[in-house]
């Protein structure tokens, strides 16, 4: 069984030159998809999706923590405010990951956060301003 999890990694300025993530991938046989990356005065931030055996992911995360990386598991990158959402469906064609589904029975729009790749394209596309950035 393969699992998929999203993590936000924080690297202190002294760590940004070390290929820590690369070593994790090699050592624990994990597939990694970089969703977002940034280096600033405060250090580096990396938003990744890791795919692999659950036990290997756990070991990989443990390795990162040992290396002094700040690791936060993410369930949601953006969130949908159900009070604001009018279910128009503007987001549906914007999302490259098809994370928004228009139920053609109820005509309600559902946000599937597990499909979200954290691109943020929906944020400035939602007319009633229902999509909010949770992180980053």
């Amino acid at each position, binding site marked *: 069984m393969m699992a998929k999890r999203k993590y936000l990694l924080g690297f202190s300025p002294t760590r940004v030159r070390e290929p820590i993530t690369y070593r994790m991938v090699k050592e624990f046989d994990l597939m990694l998809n970089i969703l977002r990356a940034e280096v600033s005065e405060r250090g580096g931030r990396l938003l990744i999706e890791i795919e692999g055996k659950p036990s290997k992911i756990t070991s990989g995360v443990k390795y990162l923590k040992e290396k002094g990386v700040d690791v936060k598991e993410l369930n949601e990158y953006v969130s949908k405010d159900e009070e604001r959402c*009018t*279910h*128009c*469906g*503007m*987001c*549906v*064609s*914007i999302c490259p990951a098809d994370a928004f589904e*228009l139920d*053609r029975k*109820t*005509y*309600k*729009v559902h946000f599937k956060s597990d499909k979200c790749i954290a691109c943020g*394209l929906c944020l*400035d*596309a939602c*007319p*009633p*301003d229902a999509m909010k950035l949770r992180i980053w």
Partner: protein
Amino acid sequence: MVMTAEEIIDVVRRKGVEKATREVDVVTTGTFGAMCSSGAFLNFGHSEPPIKMQKVWLNDVPAYTGLAAVDAYIGATEIRENGDMDYGGANVIEELIAGNPVHLKATAYGTDCYPRRKIETYVSLKTLNQAYLYNPRNAYQNYAVATNSSDMTLFTYMGKLLPNHGNATFCSAGQLSPLLNDPQCRTIGIGTRIFLGGAVGYVAWEGTQFSTKAPTKNGVPTRGSRTLAVIGDLREMSTDYVRALDFRRYGMSLAVGIGIPIPILDEQMMKCVSISDKDIFAPVLDYSVQSRSRKPLKEVSYAELKSGSIELFGKKVKTSSLSSYYKARQIAEKLKQSVQKGDFLLTEPIKRLPEDRTFNPLEIVSKEEVK
């Protein structure tokens, strides 16, 4: 019997027009979409000493006050003077309906009868003497589909349009939309009682840009065509059916919920209300062409648009609606129940809307050239 414009489709298919006409008296419609040409008239009451307001701001959004002393009109698309594009008249209207306090600032030149020159205070729906929505153009009969052939993302009133025909957006409830169910406006006219933003409202006049010249297919226009000017009390409205919309890098707009009951006068009327999405067409326009005369790339049906994608140049293009079909259904259903219970009475129009009207463009001409 009362049915929604969606429910009637299947009834007519099963029973035929004749039988359906005998059984059904009223068909209710609904739409909930961005309607930029919206706004509200407000009366603030007189201050001590009084002021003849010359400039007015509500939560820093300018309102028009070139009227009597304390009357103003707040337009939905007006934005703050500091350049903030994410808060405008539409938000002020939504806040008023929600019952929230709104900051009022006004300045004046001062007169003998209105000596005050400046005022700052708070108002709410409870303190305002009158607060009514008066929207000069709502409920467009039909509307074009927007796409973008350029290699840049476009931010328009038709939403975010991705490069290289990355998506296409449309804005109509299609088979549930009021004016598509009464294409000739036989029953909808001046004085028609309607559902407006949760309140009982009325058709005040023909909407601006009203046109009877659009080409038709299956008896309904395939272009913008007819529109309605509507009026209703803000006090009776709900933010469920009036909602500020923020089109980033374009500006603000207002989502307005409108529902209109259509009395089934005869079989012809029943035929009209039984129209379904597959028979209603809209042109696809390229919004990267910055001109008023864009040539339609093709015509597509609302059934195709609502399927999730249309085909453009042999490529599957994802579609998005800017009009909430979920809310349109809610409105048609709510109206159906009100009519059934006898809470909502149908009206005969006082006067029919124009049967021959052209929508003129604006030409740049000299004083001598103008017609």
